[in-house]
């Protein structure tokens, strides 16, 4: 336990990345889910152009569910493979949380990028205010990563953990749907300049929620992890 906190965070992050590169389970699952969402949406709205609110709603719900599928795995897999005790011995709780949360954050941002490209290429989505779209994605990613990482840790030792993680995380994340859709609707537009301030406010709300989720997560995680 002589290593620095930052070194431990990077070690956990590297471990997650190497494990993912070996199995590629989360990348394939989230990627396939994104493609299927775009295909399903295109079939459901064949020959019809969605409104900005419609696009924003479908996009955010697709991002939410791809996060719920992929993110809790970072903790549940430790229990399935019996490596959680080793992790407890080699890294401090805060470092474990941050390592996994940063890994999940990168995963959500990649999923958001993939969904954006797929929506633009195949679902005729056009983005009017790209910077607002990017800020909304950054905030959404942080909030999703913080909340789902913690929920994954809470259910790691429970029965039926996959479904339970989504059951726990969904009610915590539903308030974000309102903020996410409000921000994306303006970013997708085109809407009048009078709506822009509402979109900016919603984006700031998303970023604040993300910061709060990532700030509180390590403390709650430490209280749970040491007693497991």
């Amino acid at each position, binding site marked *: 336990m002589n290593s620095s906190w930052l070194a431990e965070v990077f070690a956990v992050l590297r471990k997650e990345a190497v494990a993912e590169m070996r199995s590629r389970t989360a990348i394939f699952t989230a990627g396939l889910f994104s493609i299927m969402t775009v295909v399903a949406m295109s079939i459901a709205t064949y020959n019809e152009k969605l409104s900005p609110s419609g696009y924003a709603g479908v996009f955010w719900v697709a991002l939410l569910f791809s996060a719920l599928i992929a993110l809790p795995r970072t903790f549940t897999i430790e229990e399935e493979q019996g490596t959680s005790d080793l992790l407890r011995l080699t890294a401090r709780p805060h470092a474990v949380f941050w390592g996994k949360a940063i890994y999940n954050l990168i995963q959500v941002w990649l999923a958001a990028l993939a969904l954006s490209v797929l929506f633009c290429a195949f679902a005729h989505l056009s983005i009017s205010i790209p910077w607002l779209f990017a800020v909304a994605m950054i905030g959404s990613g942080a909030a999703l990563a913080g909340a789902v990482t913690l929920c994954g840790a809470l259910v790691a030792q429970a029965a*039926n953990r996959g479904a339970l993680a989504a059951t726990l995380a969904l009610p915590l994340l539903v308030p974000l749907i309102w903020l996410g859709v409000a921000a994306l609707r303006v970013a997708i537009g085109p809407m009048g300049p009078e709506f822009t301030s509402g979109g900016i406010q919603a984006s700031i709300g998303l970023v604040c929620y993300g910061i709060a989720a990532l700030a509180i997560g390590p403390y709650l995680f430490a209280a749970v992890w040491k007693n497991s």
Partner: protein
Amino acid sequence: MTNDSSSSSASVLGIVGKALLIVGIPAVTVWGFMVPPAEGFMQPDLARMLFFHLPCALGSSIFLMLAPYFALRNLRSKDHADGVAWDIRTVAATEIALVTGILTLVTGSLFSKVQWGEWWNWDPRQTSFLLVMLIVAAYFALRGALPDAERKAHNSGAYLLAAVLPIMFLIFVYPRLPQVATLHPNLLQKGGGLDANYRNVFLSTFVLVTGVTAWIYQLRVRAGLYELELELQNAELADRDRPAATGMVRPVSLPSDGG
């Protein structure tokens, strides 16, 4: 001596409080029917449902504020028995929040049918309260899925603390946002629509509902602590019958008169 006097004064207060509740509930019920029907409602007589609906919502919110505090005390507790006692308080507060929350949703749904013509019309305040109840239900789902008692207490407590921010947002912020159009009147703001008759009955029912839920909470915590004590005694008895491991000397209790 001090403990004896404080416990006896607490029991006197408890008896007086319970007597007031027993007298107050029928009295306020009758008073509620004596106020004139509210004007501006589709069915003015049924506006009296407010006397039960709103105190239940406020009671649920109060217990939802208390439960995370108890969960925090449990997580910070160094002593095992103390931690278990805080967990019992957390569960009791969350259970009461769930029951009063469900009563709020049921009475709200009846009110919605009468006033707006739909059992459920996705009003922002109605929906946000449903989401809060889903968070509370998820808390119990997590407790049910964890086998170990200590893990159950810690993990569910951490979940409740993580849920504080969304609960606050859903109860206090979301329904009041200017972009959100709710059919619910904001009764807490100045000139919020309650006339003096209705306000007085509402305040009385709020005090009564708070009193009843506090009483139920107290009984639930006491039952939980007795249950815990019984479990510990049973474990001790079971342990007494078990043969000691090789090389281990068990303590033997001798009769007090010294034989």
